[in-house]
């Protein structure tokens, strides 16, 4: 019972990451019809926005401490962050501590800008090109983005901890009357789940309840007719691309305290996010979110010891088994629309 509860929590948490990435991808892939292999890179850049921001916050000046020696026997250089110098150790320290959540403010404009630039500068010219060309150009772009990040930040993972207040774990079991230490869950992961839910809700309501969203939805369904009505759908699609990039980026920012980001984290998520989008069904936003959570939860269950001892190695392949089963029983994934990317 407690094991199932724990794995459900894990599944919701993993699922929220999958769902967020897939949501952004499906906005571009399922609706604009662009096979965007650079989507994982957007997630990665989001994460490195957080890294950059925390580095900016902890920019330091060096003073020599003659009482201590460094590894070569010279006086040790002691670093003091400027923020602590300006605002005092108290406030400065708190600001540095909160760098990751604060970097959201920084990441949103950066990601939207990157999204715009990508769409205007590159993707726009590929709407009418075969998918093969889209794959090649976006894969090339993904490599370039990745290498640029590697050039500046190195290949090693960079620890980016959550604020003190959110580190450690909470005993959820006690809240529902179970024994202590039975259902323990990290606080930041719960934050991530609620954050993901909020973003998903925001994107849906944006598309559902605003005129802008209505036009975009119409454009997805029939771009030509909307264009004939005199509506500049191109501009709106650019904005959608920016939003998709921002969603991917925010998913990345908030993910950094869960796992230290490195330059190839985007590639790790790339294949998975395509599987999630397709299992959810092409062109369906709810499908992508649903598939994300479903795969997350089932993946967590598959890693339970009871199940692993029954079928060894099941956790290695569970995602793919589910993908195959779903695609064979439901031709267009969970909620896919007919005719989207079926040629």
């Amino acid at each position, binding site marked *: 019972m*407690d*094991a199932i509860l*724990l*794995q459900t*929590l*894990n*599944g919701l*948490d*993993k699922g929220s*990451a999958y769902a967020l990435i897939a949501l952004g991808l499906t906005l571009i892939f399922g609706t604009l019809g662009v096979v965007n292999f650079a989507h994982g890179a957007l997630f990665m850049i989001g994460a490195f926005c957080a890294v950059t921001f925390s580095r900016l916050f902890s920019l330091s000046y060096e003073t020599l401490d003659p009482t*201590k020696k*460094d*590894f*070569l026997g010279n006086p*040790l*250089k002691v670093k003091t962050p400027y923020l602590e110098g300006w605002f005092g150790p108290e406030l400065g320290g708190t600001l540095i501590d909160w760098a990751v959540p604060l970097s959201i403010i920084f990441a949103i404009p950066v990601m939207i800008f990157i999204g715009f630039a990508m769409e205007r500068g590159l993707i726009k010219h590929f709407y009418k090109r075969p998918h093969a060309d889209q794959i090649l150009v976006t894969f090339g772009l993904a490599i370039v983005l990745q290498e640029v990040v*590697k050039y500046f930040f*190195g*290949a*090693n*993972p*960079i*620890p980016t*901890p959550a604020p003190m207040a959110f*580190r*450690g*774990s909470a005993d959820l079991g006690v809240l529902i009357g179970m024994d202590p*230490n*039975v259902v*323990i*869950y*990290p606080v*930041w*992961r719960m934050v991530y789940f609620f954050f993901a839910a909020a973003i998903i809700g925001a994107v849906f309501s944006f598309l559902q309840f605003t005129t802008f969203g209505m036009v975009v939805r119409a454009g997805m369904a029939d771009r030509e007719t909307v264009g004939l009505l005199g509506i500049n759908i191109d501009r709106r699609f650019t904005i959608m691309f920016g939003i998709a990039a921002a969603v991917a980026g925010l998913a990345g920012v908030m993910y950094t305290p*869960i*796992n*230290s980001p*490195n330059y*190839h*984290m985007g590639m*790790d*998520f790339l294949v998975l996010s395509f599987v999630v989008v397709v299992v959810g069904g092409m062109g369906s936003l709810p499908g992508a979110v649903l598939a994300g959570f479903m795969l997350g939860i089932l*993946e*967590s269950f598959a*890693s*339970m*010891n009871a199940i*692993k001892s029954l079928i060894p*190695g099941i*956790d*290695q392949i569970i995602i793919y088994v589910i993908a195959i089963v779903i695609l064979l029983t439901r031709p267009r994934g969970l909620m896919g629309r007919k005719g989207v990317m079926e040629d």
Partner: protein
Amino acid sequence: MSNSNFTRRGVLKTGAIAGGSLAVPTIFTAGSASAFTNEPTGSSVTLGFNVPQTGPYAEEGADELRAYQLAVEHLNGEGDGGMLNTFSSKALKGNGILGKKVEYVTGDTQTKSDAARASAKSMIEKDGAIMITGGSSSGVAVAVQGLCQEAGVIFMAALTHSNDTTGKDKKANGFRHFFNAYMSGAALAPVLKNAYGAERRAYHLTADYTWGWTQQESVQAATEAMGWQTVNNVLTPLATTDFSSYIAPVLNSGADVLVLNHYGGNMVNSLTNAVQFGLRDKMVNGKQFEIVVPLYSELMAKGAGENIKGVYGSMNWNWQLGDEGTKAFVQSFGQKYGFPPSNAAQTSYAQTLLYADAVERAGSFNPCAVVEALEGFEFDGLGNGPTLYRAEDHQCFKDVLVMKGSDNPTSEYDTLEIVEVTPRAQVEYAPDHPMFAGGDLGTCNPGA
């Protein structure tokens, strides 16, 4: 360059080959005058440094490469000479190897067996490398070692920790200076017993591939021998990035120690996740819950940040050691690059020197002569104390370091502190130990 790969049996077939329909007319064949593959004939000799330059281990590869370049400088008599001054063998004179200037080529293993072999092959076939060294994973080391055996060049393994490299997959042309999983287990167990007591229940999370398995097996055997119990061993897929679903059940399993048999990015993530779940703040069975990472590296420690505080692990070498060899190496590496070397760098540097020294002592680049010179070689002054290159399996035997994540690091370089230098006698094992059984060294292959 002539890489006609004659083996003892192959020679007999030469006639058949010449007659073979695919064989090129023999008039083209340059006389196979050399006695072994890539015999250096000019005034220089080429070494092949095959390290990961892309992918997750790129930083480790970069550090190995720095050490190789430093070693080449020292061999050629440039710089301050580093560990050449402290090395117990005085055969090397700083005039290259056997008077030939040392040159090198580099390649990218991508931490994939295929790419690593392709890169090594190009060094052998195109650049005429006489020795290949490098690597940052056991799969790659074993693959390249096999290739070097076939091609008839020497392979000096860098970072490879699996028992198989000098066990099941050992090869006559391959040598390993780095320590292995068995030694990690043997060195860690007594320290863990002192720190956490003999009544502990361990839960293993193990990377699901050969290195992970050998390490888990070694650590389990060593800890059980001193009284610990093993509650469970869960294999985690290599591609896992989020270990939450493997860590969540640990607390309810009755275990009070978590052993993470992971390396590189896997280790950084699994340790980060374990600390997130608050495992180390909990009391289980009336004892403080603890985490152990049997194999440490500086780069992993850096990636895991504060999470490593107080976590035990083992290492081949650390720059904080106080011996003369270490001091000389850290000094010359630090002067050149501005930060202390990693243990991957030290093993790379030592391997290059050991190879050069063996050639010098043998008086020949012939792989068989080098093998003979290295087998059973006793030396000191390369940072690890008195060391033996055992003839039976080409494994180095030396002291092993038990490390702990430092509670109060003064800089980004001393995040790990040395807890104990486990003496060599304690980590030795018989060549036919079951964990190393099944291999066959074969005979040295000089190629050509």
